[in-house]
Each structure stands twice: as structure tokens, then as C-alpha cells.
């Protein structure tokens, strides 16, 4: 019997507990040529699932199948601490029946199971519909009968020898420990390859392969008398949707001594005096402030109350008092949502409901211009789009972390665009600061459930006096109220200061799902921000 026949028709013959799946060729040694899913089988399974859903009464259905392969390794000082290789494979079926959503998923990838799960999703949607006051409506989407997309990587991380990865981390650790006062170092690498299939009753069938790479290290310095300890991490090497070239490009061995020196310097740094300071925020730090105070509050599901029980709502409410009216910042402030930047963690060909994402301005010339949407959400902004002569269309911001989770609205890469006029330098931005603090790297972060009140730390804090950087500070955190904070931004750097930071673990939804997202931005200056001293004595 051919593998495909076995898969489609022979499920009953598989072991009672076995997945009976042959859709994935063996992942031996990570050296599988090409992509991992068998295209013909995937297509047939998707059609079976969609047909089963329709027959059971679904007015809409989509089928997502994912094969994830991940690898994680960690070290401390001169030794390895873990090395794990993992794969997970399965599918989920989402349906609309009687105007309500249903979703079910399983790891058993075979013909019998996709049919069972499709029916299970429909039955669940019927149960949910009993509570429904308003039926769902989806914005239109263009059918994509044969879509293909792949992350633009140069070196497949699963092809890189294990020894080379371990050796790189141990050499970086040694370089860090060569700095006097650096006592501990933890370093790690994480890689993901995800093969995704999407098919819908609206005629789309899309295959995509994405990669992500996250190399990281943290160095701890301990005071000789045990009275203090301080850390510095590798925040200037962000996680990216790239291959192993991103790890080698991070130059960990070369950078480790600099990071270690910064940790040691914090031991004797001057504790900050609380007060109001001008802040010069490097993009290694600013990306996280953008993430928390611009990207999250412009998620339309939050604004409408769908995340009120966990991630929260938004200060942007009611929408018609904000869209086109709310001044986020000065005229030069432009914030873009996109899923197209090469290496951006959210970048993708089509989102998890088959929409090709567009690039759009969330903040345009300082004013709130648009919000993040899925197909269910775009119609909620129909009036605004019609007023502005724009189509009612999803921005393609739907995402699920895995086959076992239902897709929902997740942020695209949300970027603060650099100064379009000229390439303003960091020196120029510092030169006009009398009493300020420069912050490099992301640290502690917390923001309220409507994204007003935020507190951010950092990795490295430098005092600025009369236009010059004078020395390190410690125990620094700033507190800000989002509208005032962004309106205090009086200067942004040019293109040459842009850096793309990002998060691998952006949590939202219940059950909580992790999104990975990048935020590129230039250096920027903020006037008169409230700084607190976080050092206390036990």
C-alpha cells in the first residue's frame, strides 16, 4: 500500500494509540530536503475536513495543519545545561455554524480524524450559538488557490552541526568570564521551523514555511563582598525570523566582553536620583515601549472588550472619538503595521485566515489612523473606512501559535518610522540634553490593562549632563502615561539609527498564546519623564 493510501484510508488499521501519520517524512538528523509536509496528502486531508464541516452544517470552515520543529540548547559558564530537539504535528478545524465559532484540534493526522474533528468543531459551534445575540460577519478575502511563502533565510539552523552551536556558546561564555568581576553566564539558542498549511471553504490553499532564531546570553556580576549583583543581557541581538546567519551575525564571542563589562560597571554605578529627566532611548530599548504602549492598545479586539478578562482593553475608547482625532505624538511620528519586513518575526505571506497582510499606518503624522484587524473585526470599522475611501478589508493580523490553538487577532510588526527629513544621529540627539539619561536595552516592563501607565527599566543607563555622556547609573526605571509620553517625544533619529527589536513571547488570549513580533525604530528623545529609583534594602 502506498503511504498516501494508507494515510487516507487506513486509519483504522493503525495502532490503537498511534497517530498513523506519514504526512511528515522522517526528520532524521534534520537533513530533510525541501519542506516537511507531503503536499498532495495535505491538500486531500484539508478537503476532507472542509467537506465534513460543510456537510455537518458549517457556513464557513478553515483547516490549519502545522509541523513544528524546534531546537533549544543552553549553557552556563563552561558547561552545557540542556539540549532538546522537539517536533509537534497536528491540525485544527475552525468553523462558523449558526453564526458562532467552533474550533477543535488533534494530533492524529489521518482521514478519519480530520472528519471527526471537523464534526466536533461544528457541534461545538452549535452549543456556542445558543448564547449568540449577534451572528458573525467576515470581511471578504481573495481566494488563493495555490499560495506559497518561505522565510528568507540563508542558513537552515537545523543543518548546522550541534558541535558548532555548543562551541559558539561556550566560547562566548569564556569571553564574558574573562572580564574581571563577571561571575556567571547563561547562554542559549532557540530555533523554530514551522511548516503551515491553510485551506478554507472560500477556495484558498496555502503552504508556508517560517523560521525563527533566538540566540541569547545573560551575564551576572557579583560584588566581591556579596553586597550586590547586577546583570546585562545581549539585548542588542534581537530574536528574528532568520536562519543561523543571524546567530553568527550576532558576534557573541566578540560582544560578550562588552556586555560583561556593562554588568560589572553597574556594581559601582551611581544610584539614580529620582526626578524628571530627558530620556534618550536607544532602539534596543524603545522597541518594547512601542510594543506595550502603541502596538497593544491599537488591537481592535482589545478595544472592543474581547480581551477584558486577561490582556485588558485599551485607552482608545470609544473608537469614534479617537480614530482620525487622537494625537499620539508630534507630526513627525508615523507608526506602521506590516508583516512584510524580511526577518520580521511577524512577517508572513498570508495570515492564519488566508489574508495577505498589507502595510498600513496606525499613526499617521502624529494622529491615530488605523487599527489592527482580522476578517471578523474589519467590518466593525466599516464606517471609518468608507469615510476615508478605503476598502473594508482585514489587515491580515490573524495568528495562532500552533495547530492546537484557535487563530485570533495578533499584532503585526509595529514600527516607529525614522525621521524622513534627514539622517539625524545619536550625537545630535544627545547634544541638546542638559540633564538626562540614555537607556540601552530592554529590562523590566509593566503596563496597565488599558495601556496608560507604564514602567520600564533597561539594561544600561548612562547619565547625560550638558550634552555629554558622563557615566553609568543604576536602579533606573521611568514611569509614563502613554499620551503624555509620546507627545513628549521631540526628536527622532534617522535611518542609520534604526534597529529591529522583538519579542518571542508576547502573551495574549485565553488560553494564552505566544506571538513573536518585531518592532523596528530609530533612537528617540523624550522630554521631562518621571524617573524612579528602584533600589530598596531588604
Amino acid at each position, binding site marked *: 500500500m502506498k503511504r498516501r493510501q494508507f494515510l487516507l484510508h487506513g486509519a483504522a488499521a493503525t*495502532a490503537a*494509540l*498511534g*497517530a498513523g*501519520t506519514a504526512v*511528515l517524512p*522522517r*526528520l*532524521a*538528523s534534520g537533513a530533510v530536503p525541501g519542506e516537511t509536509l507531503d503536499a498532495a496528502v495535505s491538500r486531500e486531508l484539508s478537503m476532507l475536513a472542509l467537506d465534513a464541516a460543510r456537510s455537518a452544517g458549517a457556513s464557513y470552515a478553515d483547516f490549519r495543519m502545522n509541523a513544528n520543529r524546534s531546537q533549544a540548547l543552553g549553557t552556563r559558564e563552561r*558547561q*552545557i545545561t540542556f*539540549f*532538546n*530537539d*522537539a*517536533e509537534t*504535528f*497536528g491540525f485544527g478545524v475552525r468553523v462558523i455554524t449558526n453564526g458562532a*465559532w467552533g*474550533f*477543535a*484540534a*488533534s*494530533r*492524529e493526522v489521518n482521514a478519519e480524524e480530520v472528519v471527526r474533528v471537523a464534526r*466536533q468543531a461544528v457541534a461545538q459551534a452549535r*452549543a*456556542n450559538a445558543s*448564547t*449568540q445575540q449577534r451572528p458573525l460577519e467576515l470581511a471578504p478575502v481573495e481566494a488563493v488557490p495555490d499560495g506559497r511563502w518561505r522565510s528568507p533565510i540563508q542558513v537552515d539552523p537545523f543543518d548546522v*552541526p550541534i558541535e558548532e552551536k555548543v562551541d559558539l556558546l561556550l566560547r562566548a561564555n569564556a569571553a564574558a568570564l574573562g572580564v574581571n568581576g563577571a561571575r556567571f553566564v547563561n547562554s542559549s539558542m532557540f530555533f523554530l521551523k514551522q511548516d503551515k498549511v491553510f485551506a478554507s471553504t472560500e477556495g484558498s490553499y496555502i503552504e508556508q514555511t517560517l523560521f525563527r532564531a533566538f540566540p541569547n546570553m545573560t551575564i551576572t556580576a*557579583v560584588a566581591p563582598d*556579596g553586597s*550586590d*549583583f547586577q546583570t546585562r543581557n545581549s539585548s542588542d541581538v534581537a530574536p528574528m525570523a532568520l536562519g543561523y546567519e543571524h546567530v553568527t551575525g550576532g558576534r557573541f564571542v566578540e560582544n560578550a566582553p562588552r556586555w560583561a563589562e556593562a554588568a560589572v560597571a553597574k556594581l559601582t554605578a551611581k544610584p539614580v536620583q529620582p526626578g524628571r529627566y530627558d530620556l534618550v532611548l536607544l532602539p534596543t530599548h524603545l522597541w518594547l515601549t512601542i510594543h506595550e504602549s502603541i502596538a497593544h492598545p491599537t488591537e481592535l479586539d482589545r478595544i472592543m*472588550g*474581547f480581551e*477584558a*478578562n*486577561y490582556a*485588558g482593553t485599551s485607552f482608545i*475608547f470609544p473608537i469614534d472619538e479617537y480614530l482620525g482625532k487622537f494625537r499620539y505624538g508630534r507630526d513627525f511620528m508615523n507608526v506602521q503595521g506590516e508583516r512584510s519586513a524580511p526577518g520580521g518575526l511577524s512577517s508572513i505571506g498570508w495570515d492564519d485566515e488566508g489574508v495577505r497582510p498589507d502595510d498600513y499606518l496606525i499613526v499617521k503624522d502624529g494622529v491615530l489612523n488605523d487599527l489592527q484587524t482580522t476578517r471578523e473585526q474589519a467590518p466593525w470599522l466599516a464606517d471609518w473606512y468608507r469615510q476615508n475611501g478605503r476598502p473594508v478589508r482585514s489587515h491580515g493580523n490573524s495568528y495562532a501559535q500552533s495547530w*492546537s*490553538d*484557535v487563530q485570533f487577532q495578533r499584532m503585526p510588526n509595529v514600527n516607529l518610522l525614522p525621521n524622513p527629513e534627514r539622517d539625524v544621529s545619536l550625537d545630535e540627539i544627545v547634544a541638546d540634553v542638559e540633564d538626562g539619561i540614555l537607556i540601552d536595552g530592554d529590562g523590566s516592563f509593566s503596563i*496597565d*490593562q*488599558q495601556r496608560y*501607565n507604564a*514602567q520600564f*527599566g533597561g539594561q544600561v543607563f548612562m547619565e547625560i549632563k550638558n550634552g555629554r555622556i558622563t557615566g553609568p547609573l543604576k536602579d533606573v526605571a521611568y*514611569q509614563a502615561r502613554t499620551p503624555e509620553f509620546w507627545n513628549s517625544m521631540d526628536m527622532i533619529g534617522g535611518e542609520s539609527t534604526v534597529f529591529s527589536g522583538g519579542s518571542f513571547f508576547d502573551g495574549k488570549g*485565553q*488560553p*494564552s498564546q505566544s506571538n513573536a513580533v518585531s518592532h523596528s525604530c530609530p533612537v528617540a528623545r523624550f522630554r521631562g519623564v*518621571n524617573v524612579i529609583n*528602584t533600589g*530598596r534594602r*531588604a
Partner: protein
Amino acid sequence: MTNPRYLSRADAEAIAQKVLSFSTADEVRVNLNSGAQGNTRFAQNQISTSGDTFDANVTVTSAFGKHVASASTNRFDDDSLRQVVQTSERLARLVPEDPEYMGELGPQEYLPVEPYFESTANITPEDRARAVMLVANPARQQGLVSTGYLSHFTGAQAVANNRGLFAYARGTGTSFTTTVRTPDGTGSGWAGGGENDWRDLNFASLGEQAIRKAEMSRNPRAVEPGEWTVILEPTAVANMVNLMMFAMNARNADEGRSFFSRAGGGNKLGERIVDERVTVRTDLTDPRAASIPFSGEGLPNAPRVWIENGVVRNLMYNRFWAARNNTQPTGFPGNYMMSGGNSSIDEMIRSTDRGLLVTRLWYIRPVDPRTILFTGLTRDGTFLVENGRITHAVKNLRWNESPIFLLNNIDMMSPPTRVNASESGDGGSVMVPAIRARDFTFTSLSDAV
């Protein structure tokens, strides 16, 4: 096929034995996790999304000498199982020695605990929808907007190795959280709970609590940030005490990079660090918060006292650090229970001249590990207490505080109760009291409702 829920003991043992038979390593361990999860979310007084998922996963950890690596898959056909063994062995041969590898354990004795309830295992989407309506209907009838999350899992864990160890336990859990808001966005109230047995969750009562707090919290007034007497409801107490528990790693303490490090070297074992009324222990057999009786390595989870009358009695040791320090490994606890007192929250309010009543805390993130200082905000029900009664809602506040300071400033405690204190609403087996404490540090106001 019926809807699969988890691997039975016999199935788990058969798969584990098969995996072990494929192994050529000196030492090998098999971890099997399987289970079904279901959830229903609601917003705007109706169900928004829901899901039912079945997954099962095997992780194989292979060692040649002290060369160790692991691999995992969720495919259980023979080829996949053989492959996952081979992958872990191939990796193990290539990685450097892990000098801290302790080898596999021999057979162990476990407490006969199985926190498994058929009532939870048999929950259907229809059950979930009915439960949601016990909150959403009254909220709608009162002109309020309810949102929330109901989840449950039914699963089994198994550990087996080539030294004869086999451990298996089933478990169930369910949790429910709801946030009710006023339509104008000026008031918000929360309630939540978590149980192993679905029958112990009282949805209507939780809904009433959230509705009452939403009504009470309309139009909050500003108060000055600063040092406040606070009455923390049990959820907020667990939000804080969790932070201390996560900081109790013995090795970090011994290495001088923890609050539990002693100045001049060593750790704080035997030192009094908090109020002498505070005792924190783990007891996986406690029927109110039972948890499974073994760790991922197959180490027995035993009842243990962490803090006794304010004194540090135990820190958390893995097998390597325990052996190095001639003590017993503790693993990480599956639950914890904190001591309480006899005061009710009403009594705390009645005896307070001026203070803040706090429902729960949010976006809790580390600021300074030297003091376990964290920051976060109050949320979904923060009230001013004056002259023995709640006088009005107050705006939410950002705090910068440590559980150590909090637990040194206790005035009164209630009897402990089980809470759902994870920010994501996914439960946790934690029992804590409500606490009235002095000098809780709030650093700024928030306009968030």
C-alpha cells in the same frame, strides 16, 4: 473513534516499554504527557471563541556517560518512536559532557494521590455554554458587559526509565475567571476560581461577585500614591506570595544572586525573613489543592515546609545541588499552602481607619531580584476604606513592592482559600489567606479601568 482524552496507565506503560526497547543509551528516560483541553471564552455577554484539543507527547532523554540530550514528538507510530530515540541518542553523542548530570533514578515510592475527577473529564461544550450563561445572563439583565474564560483539562503524566522506574498519574483541573464591566467603561469587577473537581466551581456566585464589584467600582476617585494600609484579597496575596516561591532556588542563593543569599556567603536557611505567623508548605495530598505525586525526573513530590513561623526551612534543590550540599532534592512544588488567621475580610474592613481594598494585581514583573522587588498594578476592584467601611472606588495604582516586605507588615489574616492567581486565568493549586498589611508601596496612579 470516540473523543480521546488521555493515555491510560496500560497504554502509557506499553508505549514507554516500547521506547525503552529501542534505546541503546547507557541511561534513558521517557516522559509521556497526554490529555484533552477544552475552553470557552465569552465577551459582550456571549461566547466569542472556544476550543477542544487532544494532544500527547513523548520526550526521550538519552545519556552516554554524562553526555545527555533529549528529543520529543507527538507522533506515536513505531517509526516516530524509533526516530525520537535515535534523535536523542545522536544529539547526546555530539554534545559535551554535562558534569552535573545525576543519572536516572531507580524505582521510587509515591504517595497515592490522583487529583482526577470524572465530573471534570466529562465536561462538554454544552456544559461550558450553560456555565457561561450563569454569568452572562445576569450581567446582561443588569445592563453590564461580561467577559471571561472557562477552561478544563484531563490528562495523564508518566515517567519511565531503564533503571526500572515507572510513575503514572492522572489529573483533572478546571478554572473560571470573569471580568464584568460597565458599558461606559468606568467600572470593572473580577472574580475567579480554580478546582480539580468541576462541581466545586460556583459560576453563579463568581458572576455575582464580579457584577457587584463592577457596580461598586464605577467612577473611581484618585488617591495619593504612597505607603498605604492594604487589605489584599486572597488572589492578590497569591499574586505576591508566588513571587517569593519562584525566588527560592537554593543554588541562586548559594551563588550570591538572590534575596535568599546571606551577606558574606551561603544562604538564609534558618533565618527569620517574614512575620512569625507565616508558614508556607507544600502538601500534594491536600484535597483542596491536590497535585500529582512525582516530578518530571520521577522524583517523589513530598509534603514539605518552606517557611515555618517566618523562618526559612527549605529552599528548592535540584538533584545535583542537593547532592553537592548533602541535602534532599525538593524539585519544584506542585502546590503550596500558606497559613492564615481568623479574621474575615469584613472584619479587616471594619477595623481599618483608612486603607485600600485590592481585588487582584496585574502585569507583575521583576524590578530588582536583590529584594524580590516587583512592579504591577491593581485591577478590577480597588476601593477606599475609611472609618471601617468601603466609601468609594479608587483609581488603580502602580505598586513597587516585595512579598518579603508585605509578609513582614501583616496586621490580620483570614483563613486560607484556594485561588486562581495566574494572570492568564489558567489556575494553579495555591491556598492563601486575605491579608491586611501596613505600608504597601504605591508609586503612581493609573487611569485604566
